[in-house]
């Protein structure tokens, strides 16, 4: 018997097969039935209680069976594996619900027109099929790209200063960055409003929004990048120095390339932080019904969060539908950005 499994075709240890599935589903089914009966004949009630009782029964049985067939160690191992897996599943449950809700609500009035129409000249009571979020989509893309473009060099430089240069002002810089990460987004908006929009007389614009978003993004990028630089093996810096490299070349050619995917993660987190920000936009880009990508520096500009906010607050049925569609598009854009950044982070550029 055992010889078959020793020679035989290559296989992966501990694969999940039919048998394992049965061992999982059977106790689950039994737990379901027993709990249903329990809830029918005892005063136990309520969905939360049902889940807790059923889950406990399931784990107990699963452990008991694995222990009987494979011993205590295997029993504990499997029970803990299942508990941890279900804990992981539990954390993504809210996400799945939110996403499901947004998709269900948003897909209803999501047409192609939504992607290439603007709200220019659309009457307040017009149906959802009239008008679209083209202007808001480009606005968001431009503003987020611009904010990233402005913020990432500063963020990475800050991290390099904190982790590589380790100059005299490290404690000060760290305090500032920490304070910035606690900055309420509306205050960032107010700051740009006071300094840029009013103070320097630049007026509302997409650029003003990008500046506010950049302020919000900076601490995330700086601190995450710093953590990623900490992970770079110090012996690589040593090797580089021992080859006669000045520190700036060590940072540029060894440390940053080694931490590359980590830095991309930092940028993704930064983008995630700002893509849905609404409050600072109210005072900086203000909003617009027209598409004006070429006037990013000078005119009020729409973006998806502002679009959602403005449609929701108008509280017409059709407007609310548009808001949901815009929410779906916003979530999709962030998701696509994530995937793109991940792919960029993984592959090495061909030389």
């Amino acid at each position, binding site marked *: 018997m055992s010889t078959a499994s020793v020679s035989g075709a290559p296989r992966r240890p501990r694969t999940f097969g039919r048998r394992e599935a049965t061992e999982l589903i059977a106790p689950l089914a039994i737990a379901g039935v027993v709990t249903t009966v329990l809830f029918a004949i005892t005063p136990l009630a309520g969905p939360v209680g049902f889940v807790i009782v059923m889950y406990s029964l399931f784990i107990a049985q699963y452990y008991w069976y694995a222990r009987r067939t494979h011993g205590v160690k295997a029993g504990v191992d499997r029970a803990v594996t299942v508990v941890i897996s279900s804990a992981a599943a539990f954390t993504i449950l809210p996400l799945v619900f939110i996403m499901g809700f947004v998709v269900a609500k948003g897909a209803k009035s999501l047409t192609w027109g939504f992607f290439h129409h603007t709200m220019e000249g659309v009457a307040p009571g017009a149906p959802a099929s009239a008008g679209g979020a083209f202007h808001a989509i480009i606005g968001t893309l431009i503003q987020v790209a611009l904010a990233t473009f402005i913020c990432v060099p500063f963020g990475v430089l800050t991290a390099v200063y904190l982790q590589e240069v380790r100059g005299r002002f490290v404690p000060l810089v760290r305090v500032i960055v920490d304070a910035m990460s606690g900055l309420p987004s509306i205050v960032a908006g107010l700051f740009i409003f006071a300094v840029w929009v009013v103070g320097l007389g630049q007026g509302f614009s997409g650029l003003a929004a990008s500046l506010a978003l950049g302020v919000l993004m900076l601490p995330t990028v700086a601190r995450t990048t710093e953590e990623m630089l900490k992970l770079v*093996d110090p012996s690589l810096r*040593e*090797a*580089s120095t021992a*080859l*006669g490299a000045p520190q700036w*070349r060590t940072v540029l*050619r060894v440390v940053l*390339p080694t931490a590359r995917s980590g830095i991309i993660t930092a940028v993704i987190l930064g983008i995630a932080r700002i893509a849905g920000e609404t409050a600072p936009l109210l005072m900086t880009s203000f909003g617009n019904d027209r598409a004006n990508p070429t006037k990013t520096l000078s005119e009020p500009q729409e973006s998806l969060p502002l679009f959602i906010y403005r449609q929701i607050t108008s509280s017409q049925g059709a407007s609310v539908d548009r808001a949901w569609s815009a929410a779906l598009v916003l979530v999709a854009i962030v998701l696509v950005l994530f995937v793109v950044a991940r792919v960029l982070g993984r592959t090495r550029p061909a030389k």
Partner: protein
Amino acid sequence: MSITMSPAHNIESAAVNERTVDAALRAEGISCWFGKRKVLEDVNLVMERNTVVALIGPSGCGKSTFLRTLNRMHELTPTAALAGAVYLNDVDIYGPELKASVTRQRIGMVFQKPNPFPAMSVRENVLSGLKLTGTKVGNSEELVQWALLKASLWEEVKNRLDAPGGSLSGGQQQRLCIARSLAVKPEVLLMDEPCSALDPTSTRRVEETISEIADDITVVIVTHNMQQAQRVSDTCAFFLAEENRPGHIVESGLTEQMFTNPADPRTNDYVNGRFG
């Protein structure tokens, strides 16, 4: 092999005479501190051109620390302090004539743990020293082949020069690090226990590499392996830290002499494995 072939050594069977020796590197009165703690005291050592010098001694006696003073890596530790001088071809590397980065280009270093740059390919790793110092090179392909041949790695990697440096085996990675150091054409190569993470075969190959490069490079190697010290080195220095006394050189001289007829009983005990 250079042990038996070098005529200079047979003539001078006694202690190496500093005046007649062509010193590539000369340490004078080196003392080192980490914070308030003195770990090396008044170390003097002459490292003759194009020979292999082995530093031996028990753990913690300051061999690595001494090695790192030889190419100014010691000062990178924030708490580190130093007294004394190191002369590279009679120029003090701590003096105003030599920049630290130039010193390190001329005195290369190979570490105990192989540390190729993971974000670079095998080829880029070999050429990294040039990139990192902003040095232009005419024919980089030729240089890559030359360095890898010297490090006896060429045959194994010639078909995957574009693979990541980290994809090689540990022994190959260490030879890649040697090739990387050789590509900048140093005059001296410092090696801190370069074989301690390697299997016997890789160790043998690294030792062959050392013997070969010693034809035109001065090698200073720290090793805990007495056989290795005997196999590869021409001269030897025995370091020791005793109670209430920081690390110092007990005895130095020709390897043969040190292993067969040492002057100090402590050396005798150590090289014969009768020591802490």
